């Protein structure tokens, strides 16, 4: 009994230490804010811990399971009408493929977005870079671009609309 507890403690420590960063990043990419990513990371472990400890899953193999749980939590938490695609279940997952696809998908996703960005006007690109990528406020962006805050918001709105359409178009071409 005592040994089992020690082993469990070691397992949890090792599991969390070795996997939380990758899992957190994965969740962050989906939700794009620290508060929600932290919450979901924690809930993912809470849900997975019994399954992983009781089924002697090797830590190297746990990553894909954790991501699947995380994805389900995100889908559960966000309303279904906001979501696209179907819910994934642990039983359906092939861990190796899932973990690998995640990485390369991210690179492709970035490239797709960069390409779409290239089709926007320079002004639109500047607003999106400052507001979304660099994280400046609308006021800071307005000062930087020597424009009114209202004007920045309008450029931003049009840029995001245009980018949405461009990404949809790319989606249609690819799939």
């Amino acid at each position, binding site marked *: 009994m005592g040994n089992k507890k020690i082993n469990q*403690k070691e397992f*949890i420590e090792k599991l*969390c*230490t070795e996997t*939380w*960063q990758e899992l*957190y*990043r994965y969740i962050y990419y*989906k*939700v*794009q*804010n*620290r*508060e*929600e*990513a*932290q*919450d979901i990371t*924690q*809930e993912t*472990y*809470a849900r997975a*811990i*019994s399954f992983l400890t009781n089924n002697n899953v090797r830590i190297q193999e746990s990553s894909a399971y954790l991501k699947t749980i995380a994805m389900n939590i995100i889908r559960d*938490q966000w*309303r279904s009408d*906001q979501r696209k695609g179907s819910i994934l279940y642990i039983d359906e997952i092939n861990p190796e493929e899932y973990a690998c696809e995640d990485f*390369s998908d991210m*690179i*492709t996703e*970035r*490239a*797709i977005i*960069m*390409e779409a*960005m*290239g089709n926007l006007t320079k002004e639109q*690109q*500047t607003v*999106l*870079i400052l*507001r*979304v*990528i660099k*994280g*400046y406020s*609308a006021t*800071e962006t307005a*000062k*930087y671009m*020597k424009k009114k805050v209202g004007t920045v*918001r*309008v450029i*931003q*709105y049009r840029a*995001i609309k245009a980018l*949405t359409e461009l*990404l949809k178009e*790319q989606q249609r071409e*690819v799939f």
Partner: protein
Amino acid sequence: MKENDKKISGYIDQLNSEVKPKEHKKSYSSEEFGEMAETVRRLRVLREPVMPGEEFQDKLIADMMSHAQEGGIPDRRTQSKSNRSQPKSNSIQSQDDRSRLQESDTQAIRDNTKTASKIIGMRDMRDTKKSGKWARRAMILTAAVATVAVVLLAFPDWGNHRREVSIVYAMDMALQKLKAYHGIIEVTETNGFGETVLQSKREVWADQEGNYYLKELQGYYEGLITINNTKKEWQLRPGEKRVYLFPAFPDSYRFTFDLGSEVDEVKQALTVRKIGEEVVSGREAVLVEVTPEGGLPYHLWIDKETDLPLKRQSPMQNQVQITVAYTELAFIEEIPPELLSYQLPIDYEEVDANPELPVTTLYEAKTLTGLNPVLPLQIPKDYFLDGIAVLTKGEAIKLYYGREGAKGNVVLLLSKALEPLSPASQAILGIVNDMPAEFLSNYEGMSYINSIRWQQENMEYTVFGDITLEDLSEWAEEISGGKVIIPEVKEDNSKQPKIEVPVNMEAEESDQKSVDAGHSPWRLDPVFVAQVFANILISPEGIVGDYPIAYENVKIIENNGVEAIAQINDEKSIARYVYLRRLVRKDDTGIWTVVGYDPME
């Protein structure tokens, strides 16, 4: 649209603050908004995730231990509150966040471009089932990588200098938040032996409006006080027991290491490169190397806490290195008003060195001067008429324009055209409303003031200000009612000299350094350089006494700021036209060099 543009802006703000958007707790208000929110999240993939604080891992392990022991699921909401690293609210800390983001973002983009082709290869080999999908993705990826290069070129701050851009931006933002400051500046000089001497020590009060109070505490000008309250400038000289009055703008007494000017200079620099971290006056600072356009790199220490410059060190030139540093610096709400109010001290004599008389109306100015100039029907946006003055000596009217909520003063000087326009020797020669015009980037020797001067209907117009020549051109167009043409800087093969003069670039670069250090200032004057050349042509053994060809007999007929042609109007001269170029540096600090000439016919 009105509603959604605000909503999407709010959504971006929430993500930027790293908090869970309220829209993630309930449904989106419309399909359009939902799609746009998704696009924003996808776009944010270009930046690296903001990781939790260091304590997150330990708390996570502790919670999971507790959970395993209890056999239940911990309350996510209560646990997460304790685990959550709160987004930083302090603006300076936010900047740190940004810097970190931008650094990691650069890496992400680099990784992106580096690994893209590798991934395509991996996918093609591994996944035959999805080969069609991946082949199409690969095509997009390849195209996108090319686009990345284009986007990187269009936005240099996405590339290698990202980190530096974040430093510059942080400085700019810190400056915008700055209201006023009070500090002690020390200027020291270090010689080639490493000996350092205090040149001056001054107390400075300055604000964002351009007001300042400057007192020399130590050094050659000890006791001198200069005050500019943006309406007037005056200088108390205790040694003479006199107060000198000057116009507030343009200000030829601007002090060294004004934080606003310093940040502006860094913003305009070619490169800003972080080279280390040091402690300056007990404050932690980031050390950067700033390379200005047309200048040698210098070092700048930026306070980590405030993001503002603390110290600046010039490169060692001619065995002399100048260091300017704030030994004390405090940020304040405003300069004490009593420091900015003019009062003539007892026993002091007032010397009015300001050649202007303020008037209240243009009618008054016209009556006093007898001038009836054409005035701009419209002035560029955001500007307003801030004051009118007439010159006490000579018939001229000055109109002062200020700018709402931004820097940039413009002055329009109107006088009678008593003689044909005679441009300054260093001027770029252009056109305003089909008339020859003079473009200067150091009006009356002040490097921060640009000017355009031309004549029209017996009047001479000069418009000058601390804005770019391009922005001043807009004024010149409004005033003249015609087009402004600044000559383009480009190689013009149709204007090649008949006889070329060989150039030793090493010697020219050495001469440029010498001029930078204050020697041979005549090399900055194309007329002087052409005159010396024309005289040496006729007296190759050297000139004793006065030059046979006088300065007045040399006239610049073309000058685009980088290439110039001087005409020699002297029968003794061998050269008729002298061709000059700025070979080392292409701005008004660059020396002129003769590259050829056309002989007299």
